[in-house]
């Protein structure tokens, strides 16, 4: 019996929008050449940024945001040092308040596949292409992030922002995502 739950591909985009890793695990997506993948990564990087700026949701009421930090500091009186708390509260109370930080595209659905995007705090994006039926894609993509941390970032011979050519990472990702 053929399962319909498949991971098609994994792409890693560095913080400048360059493609540093691509690997296909199962057929199902169209075959693209490496140049097309590079263009795709750059395009997605741009759209991700735009999707943050077109956020139509009204910001949460400012009164609650100004109250929250004070209540949280009250609950942890000994832990927070004195100087930092005034700074965030003053920016929150500022009339020209900034919009809260938005995440950008987290998941995209089309009729043939689903794309789950995970952005690390340092701006590296993990794009996981799966079939629409695949559950728990956010867990899978986080696991890939952990592997990247373990095998790529801890590799002393890896230079930052460069294409990932790490054999251990290849093996780990393959063992995790390729179906037997």
């Amino acid at each position, binding site marked *: 019996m053929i399962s319909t739950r498949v991971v098609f591909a994994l792409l890693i985009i560095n913080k400048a929008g360059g493609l540093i890793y691509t690997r296909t695990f199962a057929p199902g*997506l*169209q075959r*693209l050449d490496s140049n*097309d993948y590079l263009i*795709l990564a750059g*395009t*997605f990087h*741009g*759209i991700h940024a*735009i*999707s*943050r*700026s*077109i*956020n*139509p*949701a*009204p*910001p949460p009421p400012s009164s609650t945001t100004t109250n929250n930090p004070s209540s949280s500091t009250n609950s942890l009186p000994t832990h927070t040092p004195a100087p930092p708390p005034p700074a965030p509260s003053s920016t929150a109370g500022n*009339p*020209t*308040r900034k919009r809260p930080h*938005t*995440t*950008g*595209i*987290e*998941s*995209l*659905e*089309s*009729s*043939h*596949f689903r794309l789950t995007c995970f952005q690390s705090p340092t701006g590296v994006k993990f794009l996981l*292409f799966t079939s629409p039926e695949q559950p728990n894609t956010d867990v899978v993509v986080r696991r890939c992030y952990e592997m990247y941390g373990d095998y790529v970032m801890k590799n002393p011979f890896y230079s930052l922002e460069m294409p990932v050519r790490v054999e251990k990472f290849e093996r780990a990702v393959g063992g995790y995502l390729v179906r037997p």
Partner: protein
Amino acid sequence: MSVYSFYIFDRHTECIYSKRFTQQPSPPRTTNPAASTLPNGGTTVPASLRQANKDSDDAKLVFGTVFSLRRMCRQLGGVDDQFLSYRTAEYKLHYLETPTQLRLVLLTSPQVGNMRTVLHQIWATLFVEYVVKSPLAPTEHQGGRGVGNELFEEGLERFMQQQQQQQ
């Protein structure tokens, strides 16, 4: 669920209808005094005009996003693949393209499910009935002419209220 905004784009990529269902915060009022004290004051743009500019810019950005994502989906999934929706932590964008290349875009809160049927209903029961069949509406809606008529506006308003109550 809450609906944030709704856009219709025609086949010439022009935004022929847009509607916002939420009030945007009005920082211009608070920043205006500060802006007038700046050396480049004097050329202050009225808040209403700035809002209109921002709305049209937003519509262009929405179209650009949708257009690129649709192209990306076609490239990866094959020619018959359709872009359906994307989700961020703050909102979700739903997309429907009709055979006449009319594009309907709906932005809602992120928790809602598939809104494709809803968009299709808007197109079939509101757009076709009140705009396409209207004898006063031109075939090409340049600059949104003939789209924002009373019946369509009213129908859309009622339809959205129904949706928000249902969910």
